[in-house]
């Protein structure tokens, strides 16, 4: 062979040396890659949670509003034993469950249609339609529902000829509005989950003699279950923490979020607010613990 023309060797530089080092040391590479996000997660998230937890064990001077950093269980005891907190907690869980059930019932057929029936073009159109409401402000949507559900709103106008009436402001209005607000968050994971189910599995079921219902029950639902649970985590936890919607359309009802809000704002009692805020956190952790085994957390 003839001598090949020399290709110049890559220039030596500090960056190159650094890259070479990282290429040879995967652990260093990982550490460098993860340190910034981990720092963020650690400081902003974990520390904030821990501070919340710690604050719950402090108390506040009622007149000056100064926080007293002496350890006390008073807030926790009050939150656990106070009938107000029990009532509101039960109401909040009830609302969150109702919203979740409604959302799953609505999201399943929509997501199934999007993932398995619609043409790719239709699929994109539907996806955009599902996502569009997310571009509008939360407040705008909540106030829109306030106007829809009003005594002289569209709903009243629509149903009054049939003897129906708008539910007015209250818990039903809250459940309707929250269901609307969180629906995209439930559709999307279920859609993604169903999308991952190969069409051939549905065909295989039909091929083996499975009609529509057995196919849905034995193949689609079990495979979509983790995605459904992932969706319920969104609707459930978002409902659990909400206080704005209930303020706008909830009439006189209040949820845990309102108690936290009043205690941070009006009452200026951060420790009690922290103690109340622990209720939804405990509930959500309990829920996550329950669903952990289903593999739903991989679908988030």
């Amino acid at each position: 062979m003839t001598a090949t023309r020399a290709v110049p060797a890559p220039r030596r530089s500090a960056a190159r040396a650094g890259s070479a080092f990282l290429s040879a040391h995967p652990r260093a590479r990982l550490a460098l890659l993860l340190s910034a996000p981990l720092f963020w997660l650690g400081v902003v998230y974990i520390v904030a949670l821990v501070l919340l937890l710690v604050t719950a064990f402090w108390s506040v001077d009622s007149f000056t509003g100064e926080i007293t950093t002496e350890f006390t269980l008073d807030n926790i005891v009050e939150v656990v034993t106070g009938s107000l907190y029990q009532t509101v907690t039960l109401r909040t869980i009830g609302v969150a469950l109702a919203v979740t059930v409604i959302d799953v019932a609505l999201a399943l057929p929509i997501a199934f249609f999007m993932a398995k029936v619609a043409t790719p073009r239709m699929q994109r159109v539907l996806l955009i339609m599902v996502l569009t409401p997310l571009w509008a402000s939360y407040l705008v949507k909540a106030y829109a529902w306030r106007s829809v559900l009003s005594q002289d709103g569209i709903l009243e106008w629509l149903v009054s000829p049939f003897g129906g009436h708008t539910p007015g402001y209250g818990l039903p209005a809250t459940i309707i509005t929250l269901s609307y607000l969180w629906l995209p968050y439930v559709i999307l994971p279920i859609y993604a989950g169903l999308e991952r189910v190969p069409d051939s599995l549905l065909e295989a079921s039909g091929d083996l003699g499975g009609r529509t219902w057995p196919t849905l029950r034995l193949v689609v639902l079990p495979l979509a279950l983790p995605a459904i649970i992932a969706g319920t985590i969104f609707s459930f936890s978002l409902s659990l923490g909400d206080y704005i919607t209930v303020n706008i359309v909830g009439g006189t009802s209040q949820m845990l979020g309102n108690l936290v809000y009043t205690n941070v704002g009006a009452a200026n009692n951060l420790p009690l607010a922290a103690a109340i805020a622990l209720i939804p956190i405990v509930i959500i952790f309990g829920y996550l613990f329950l669903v952990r085994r289903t593999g739903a957390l991989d679908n988030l």
Partner: protein
Amino acid sequence: MMRMRNARRGATVGLALASVALLTACGTSGGGGGGGGDNEAATELGETEGQISILAWPGYVEDGSNDPAVDWVTPFEEQTGCEVTTKTFGTSDEALNLMKTGEYDVVSASGDASLRLVAGGDVAPVNTDLLENYDGIYDFLKDQAWNTVDGVNYGVPHGYGANLLMYNTDVITEEPTSWDVVFDKSGDYAGKVTAYDSPIYIADAALYLMAHEPDLGIENPYALDEEQLAAAVDLLKQQRENIGEYWSDYLKEVQSFQTGDTVVGTSWQVIQNVLEGEGGKTAVTLPAEEGATGWSDTWMISSEAKNPNCAYAWLDYISSPEANAAATSYFGEAPSSDAACEFREDCEAYHAGDADYASQIWYWTTPIEDCVDGRTDVKCTDYAAWTSAWQEIKG
């Protein structure tokens, strides 16, 4: 904390004759957590510092950035050379927290915040002799419980208004003379009654009980002992059955009166003005039978003010008839002086200067353990107790 409170109580006993010096020595700043200033009123003014930082309710400090026609800050800057930076707050408690940072020179405090600011040592006494425009201010606004502690002035009045009874004139054709339409007779409008969503609204119930349940012995709706508070809470729980919704955002109130979701409840003059502007079928009244609660705001100076001379300049400026008229008119409340009414068309709507009308108003003030009606044989329920009571009422 206990030490401070005992000190205060001790000081309260021999209140009237105590001199300024004595009070500031054993008064509010000693044990309080937040205060750091010397808490002595200035005796003379120096050169202005060139800037000032103001913490205020929305609409109190307008420099034309929201509406070019609404600007009373620029003339102040031109007159005094004090560059204004503004921060607004949404609730009295937010104001309280922000003042503790020591970042602000002056604050517009409502009665349910002012006493707490004083107690926390966050604001300093104000020497009203240094304020040219102080003399013109209505006497019935001066030396009140929410701006004066133990004879020491902690600020200048800004403006005031009453929490009025608003009603839908289609539903309630005759002007009510009593708050009973939202209490004992609220069942007639079940589901369409509204109330202000704040613990301070307990005072409205207490005011009603003051007139209708004399046996309870309520002298001041902000000084309730356990038993009196319980009675007010019971009344509010009965009322809740008929409440459609509570309001704290005044636009929400405007809308629900417009749509007919609400037909009767507490309101502000400014809300009526908005509704009238949009052709609403509502009216407001101050029921003579019980009177009403209301607010009276006070400009106060931080105990850690970095620009005390500009702060005094601002207090004086905002008390001047023209500026006061502009600010109170924009917000929708009565001004602090007759002279201000020369610059406003609508003073009558707000009953400005009408001492009889004003005497029917029980201005918001923070409920504290030391009963503000002067009782010493019982402990009154404080704001924290009111807050938890309010949460319990709402359920």
